[in-house]
């Protein structure tokens, strides 16, 4: 029962920050300065989502993770299919892990 309450609490505090901006900005236009800031959020967020997380994606095996990162960069540089990059990166990580006796 306690866990259910916890889940409902977690749901509320997770959902509201996801929901309120849509409500707020569907009623009023964000001020210019905020709008300017918002334009850069995607790149700022992508950078912060990739680093430092990607380098620690395989705990204890940084080289396997770095192989995955390099493979992803190389593949997405030349091919635009996202799924290809994902598979290529996982394969590179797998190979390094396999040969380091994981």
């Amino acid at each position, binding site marked *: 029962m306690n866990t259910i309450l916890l889940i409902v609490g977690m749901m509320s505090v997770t959902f509201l920050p996801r929901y309120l*901006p849509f409500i707020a900005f569907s009623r009023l236009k964000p001020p210019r300065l905020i709008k300017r800031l918002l334009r850069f959020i995607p790149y700022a967020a992508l950078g*912060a989502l990739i680093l430092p997380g990607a380098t620690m994606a395989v705990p204890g095996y940084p080289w396997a993770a770095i192989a995955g990162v390099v493979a992803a960069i190389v593949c997405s540089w030349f091919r635009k299919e996202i799924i290809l990059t994902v598979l290529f990166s996982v394969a590179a990580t797998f190979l390094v892990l396999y040969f380091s006796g994981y």
Partner: protein
Amino acid sequence: MMINNSLSAQTGQISELRQGMMASLPIFIGYIPVAVTFGLLAKSTGVTLIEAFLFSALVFAGASQFMALQLIQFGVSPMQIVTVTFIMNFRHFLMSSYLSTIFPINDRSWLPLISFGVTDESFAYFSTQKQNRRSHFIMGLQYSAYVSWVGGTVIGYLFGAIIPRTLQASMGMALYALFIALLIPEAKKSLPATIIAIIGGLVHSLLTWFKFFSTGWNIIIAILVAAGIGALLMDEEKEECL
């Protein structure tokens, strides 16, 4: 005529939904190993199957769910866990704020569902893939990812580590590869975008390395600093190429 119109509108929506589902394949695959791990960890923490299911179905935010399991084990009070969850997931406030500027929010009826489906991955997808931002495409993508997350949780709980160990570990790379695959084409097009992304990554790395704040704050501050530098330094003209 009226019926015809609404019918064709409906087929349009269904095909959008289907396209969204197809587009979510990389996210679908990326969620599976994480969700399976969450499921089996939930079981070993002593959480019931229903509770594990509800965690994923109602909270739908990976990192905070793992954190909750850990804190439950340490005997931390639910109130405190909820507070930490709030901080940890508050980055979605920034993401939703951005998405609200690009999504079709005139049609308010889908907003609750669309905003519930905002995750790092769907945000990353929609903020870079400009071609399709219609409500049903958005939900098709978000909710196939959701099915993968919730389904993976239940599978992990019931069957444990179904994926071979080495493959499971390698698949941990999938979501990062997704972010990279979404960023690189943008970076190729625009130097300012590249610089801001690098600043975001470096600030986040530094904050994480020196443990300046808690995990949740680190990424929020990194995003705000990088986006703020962008807003301050890039003039309107350069902004146009973003």
